[in-house]
């Protein structure tokens, strides 16, 4: 890894850190649980690394490790996104037939 690559990686890291702070701190408590599962799904991005390891056929060990990694990450990605969607679909402002009154409260 050349100094250049390291430095530019550091830039990306620093900027992402700031951005992460800014973006996440704007998520309201209402959505903290969905946030958790969403970041969970996104962290499945380690797939990117796993896939290559699993497919490059460096050696049997790497392949096995890679395969396992692919499996784990995929579970996260799919599971995470599915659950997040499920949750978000539950959040409604306009109350459904069940409870017209719901946001008359808000007045």
């Amino acid at each position, binding site marked *: 890894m050349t100094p250049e690559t390291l430095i530019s990686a550091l830039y990306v890291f620093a900027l992402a850190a700031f951005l992460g702070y800014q973006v996440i701190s704007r998520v309201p408590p209402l959505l903290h649980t969905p946030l958790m599962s969403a*970041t*969970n799904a996104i962290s499945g991005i380690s797939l990117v690394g796993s896939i290559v390891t699993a497919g490059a056929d460096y050696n049997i060990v790497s392949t096995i490790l890679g395969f396992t990694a692919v499996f784990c990450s995929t579970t996260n990605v799919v599971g995470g996104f599915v659950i997040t969607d499920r949750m978000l*679909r539950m959040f409604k402002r306009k109350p459904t037939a069940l409870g017209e*009154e719901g946001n008359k*409260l808000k007045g």
Partner: protein
Amino acid sequence: MRTYFIEISYLLASILFILGLKGLSHPESAKRGMHLAEFGMLMAIIGTLMHYEIVTYVWIITGLVLGSLVGLAMGLWVPMTAMPQRTALSHAFGAFAAALVGISEFYRAGGHLETITMGALGFEVMLGALTTTGSLLAFAKLQGLVRGTPLTYRGQNVFNMALLATTIGIFVYLIFVPGSMPLFFAMVGLAFVFGLLLVMPIGAADMPVVMSLLNSYAGLASAATGFVLKNNVLIIAGTLDGFSGFILSILMCRAMNRSMTNVLFGAFGSAASSAESGGQHGVMREVSLDDIAVQLAYANKVIFVPGYGMATAQAQHAVRELANALEKRGVTVKYGIHPVAGRMPGHMNVLLAEANVPYSALYELEQINPEFPTTDVAVVIGANDVVNPDARDNPGSPIAGMPILEVDRAKSVVVLKRGQGKGFSGLENPLFFKDVTGMLYGDAKDTLTKLVGAVQHA
């Protein structure tokens, strides 16, 4: 050309992830945001599949398919009440993946990596390993597979620190004197063990905080992977993940008015705090279900204050039905949601949303507290610590200073709980002894269902 395509797909993925999380700043934009993030993930995967190093797709496909199936199963069938466990488990998976990639990179290079790469790889593997076991233990505790109470022994912290030191020592050595497989695997092993030791002394109730921490470790592990593989999308996604976890844990600690160190090494909810209990004395006034039903039926304004008990009782739907019954009678019903009610951030919000309570009826601490004095009945549904007046009135209390929902300011209070059980903090709750307070014992769900009937006939 191909590199370009891959790189661009990664860049797009990163941008889409950021947009996705930005979307979560409001429930309206959240769904669309997630779709963007999902699309981003797809791009990243497709891009990766183009990678020139890939020679066989067998294992990749198998992994993707199996993973998707398991993921789908988890995603569809895990009940909302089991969210904490689910999250813990998936942290373990994510971190494990990162660790494995790191290990294979090391193995492949026969352990001969340049300093910088080795540095990043070390972080990746260690964070990955300890997060894996740590999260698994957290999962077990939350799922009740092992006793949730903190497991402590004399000199525990010292021992853990020593272990950590050794692990890091090996790591540093490997950076400057690369190549030793055994040492590397020793390091990995120790990291795995350390994860367990880290979580052992922490009680089930503190798990959410720890989990968020583990979450940020998992994130940082992926970021480190990014440094190893010189892959920006990994760095970005990892860092975002890391920060989200970190910020959430901070918020929780703040809302519980406790320091991170206290959470991590305080072994809260064990010896220390149980001593606290029994300080308070007086009589708890038990009230009859029908009285309450009448009281509610003829009230003008009622505020529901749900807590962990509602979650364990799965009473959210019953709550919603009671609310409907009351609203039918023209009673104004609001919900007061404490930031750390339940066992994970936003726990109550999700459950009530599931019972399709409109989120416009959910009010945060600051919004609802001024309303209690004008409230006829405050119904405490399986909440305890978050309505404990000691936090406000008694500077000596271990939870002193933790902001609470001031139900005791309401004209009258009804507490639904099963018995004399304590809250997560293990503290006595003076609220239960106040004159305004009436206790309605029994499982929240049953009680509420009965109340619905009673209200309708009141």
